[in-house]
């Protein structure tokens, strides 16, 4: 019985075990990897993707895709930067950014629940349209040199800790708590697990799904604020290709594509693992022509470990 419990614990935390293996290996193989400065770097690199992954995970847990996250991020960054550059007070500009994200999320949720569109199609529409809007607003211009206060969320420090890392920790704890301890969180899992059953048991599925997408939009928009601050600039091309990484991180972390299964803590593991892999490749200065192949092999290695462990557990049972 105790053995079973241990195995279950290992399985539930498989990403983190892979991370420990990965870190131990690289402590010996990669110079400068096992240093405080580098751990800080990895967490900084994880922060923006990590925030987007919270939103994406909420959608996946409820049984939906959200392709529009990266476009929402770009729109928010561009809107906010334009606003502060044109003299709008920073809190108001941030308000505009967050509102824009929630609006995109609301549109996604409404298209899916009220118009009956497939989530993939609905968010594909916003994925294209919202990046297009960001492009249109600035006509491809890069905005840069933003006020320091505006950049606080991306580049500021609280004591010795970068704000980005604090945000990552706080947001994951917060949303983890929301998912585990609130009625809303349980509803998200139920809707993702079996929509029909959820409806029969009296859950307002429309409301849950729309709320999930609004949260996803809100978080993506917030990630846009962090990125604009981090890079002290905003471009409509921000976050290009990020949705792919966000989905991978969530799935590597064990969140099921079919909904209802997985936890945020594991998704965070997926984010940290992907960031660490990129970090190691950069530290080694791998040939630019082979870096993608090696990255793919490392991800393959990680997920193979995971599936081996699952098989082992099944065998034990």
């Amino acid at each position, binding site marked *: 019985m105790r053995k079973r419990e241990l195995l279950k614990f290992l399985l539930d935390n498989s990403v983190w075990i892979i991370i420990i293996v990965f870190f131990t290996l690289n402590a010996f193989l990669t*110079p*400068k990897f096992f*240093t405080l*400065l*580098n751990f800080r*770097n990895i967490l*900084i*690199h994880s922060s*923006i993707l990590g925030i987007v992954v919270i939103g994406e995970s909420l959608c996946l847990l409820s049984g939906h895709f959200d392709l529009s996250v990266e476009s929402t991020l770009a729109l928010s960054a561009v809107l906010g930067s334009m606003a502060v550059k044109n003299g709008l007070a920073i809190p108001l500009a941030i308000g505009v950014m967050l509102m824009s994200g929630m609006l995109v999320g609301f549109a996604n949720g409404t298209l899916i629940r009220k118009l009956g569109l497939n989530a993939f199609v609905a968010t594909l529409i916003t994925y294209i349209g919202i990046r*297009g809007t960001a*492009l249109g607003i600035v*006509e*491809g*211009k*890069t905005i*840069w*040199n933003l006020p320091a206060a505006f950049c606080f969320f991306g*580049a500021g420090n609280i004591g010795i800790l*970068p704000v980005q890392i604090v945000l990552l920790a706080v947001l994951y704890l917060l949303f983890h708590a929301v998912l585990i301890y609130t009625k809303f969180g349980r509803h998200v899992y139920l809707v993702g697990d079996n929509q029909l059953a959820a409806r029969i048991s009296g859950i307002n599925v429309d409301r849950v799904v729309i709320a999930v997408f609004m949260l996803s939009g809100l978080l993506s928009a917030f990630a846009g604020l962090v*990125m604009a601050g*981090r*890079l*002290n*600039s905003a*471009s*409509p*091309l*921000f*976050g*290009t*290709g990020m949705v792919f990484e966000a989905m991978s991180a969530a799935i590597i972390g064990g969140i099921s594509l079919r909904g209802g299964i997985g936890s945020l803590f594991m998704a965070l593991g997926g984010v940290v693992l992907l960031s660490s892999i*990129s*970090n190691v490749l*950069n*530290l080694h*200065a*791998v*040939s*630019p*022509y082979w*870096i993608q192949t090696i990255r793919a092999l490392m991800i393959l290695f990680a997920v193979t470990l995971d599936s081996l462990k699952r098989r082992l557990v099944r065998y034990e049972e």
Partner: protein
Amino acid sequence: MRKSPLFLLLVFAGGILLSFSAAFAQEKLIFGYSAPGLGDEGQWNIQKGFVDKCKELGIEVIVTDAQQSAEKQNNDIETLIARGVHAICAVPHDSAAISIAVQKCNEAGIPFFTIDRGVTAGKVVLTVKADNVKAGAIAGEVMLRLLQGKYNGIAKGKVLEIRGQPGQDVAEQRAQGFHQVLEKYPDIQIISLPGYWNTEEGFKITVDTLTANPDLDGIYYHADLYIPGIVEGVKAVKGEFAKVGEPGHIFILGIDGNPAGLDQVEAKLADGVVVQPLRDYGALIVPIIVDYLKRGEEALPKPGTVLVEEGASWSPAMVVQTAAGLEIWTNVFYVDYLGAGDPNLWGNKPRE
């Protein structure tokens, strides 16, 4: 209802007559311009230069935007063919994928030109682009001088190269020129990493490389869009950013000359930038297209000649016959903070 052959013949003849009369009545030329994606400063400006020159010469232009999709660009070009434009000019998003559309264009008898990049198959009358190998070589030479200045004349040091998309010709040529110059000096170590034309990736590479190599001397970037990421990356690792001329400064230079890039050079965040005359490609190619439509092949400049025009930023330009076809390689030049404010640079021209 069956239509008689005579009726069909009449319709056919009428159609031919109509199109002839339309061609004669309407002397005005129509050009198609297919942009790969107007999302970045560079592409926006290439397009703007083309459209402005056409307007100046009284030519109508239809601009399409492929939004970074090779497939959409093919569709765009087919639409332009269907629209019956007199000539098409494109900046290929993907040199190979666009070839299908180029061949259709050849079949339709519409002359096809490109700017900035060539195509893999199909006949292109002429390509105008910046000499990217030369741009990379200039950057290499400036970096060499800066390193020699730092180490009392000795050519040594460690340089990070943030590339574009590996495999894409522009990125490859910018790398090639830079390496050609610096590889002659064995004590200069170049760390090359791909940034995929992505600012955030540039930030991560800067942070990671500076962590692994705290003694890094310089950073060479393939495009201006990396500068904000580089500056913030240096800040994130070193805690502060030493501007040009300040102690502890890391040399930063690269290629493009976009408005943001020039601003950053002027603000002494970067040492300098190799400028490409993006805004003036149109001024160079549009008159050649017009002339080609009138006189055919003989209107084209001869390979081996050098085109010169007083005061034009593309001048002098070399005419080169490459495996891909006839190309004009425009001038590129280096500006540092003293020259970055020059109002004649395309990056300093107003957008409208």
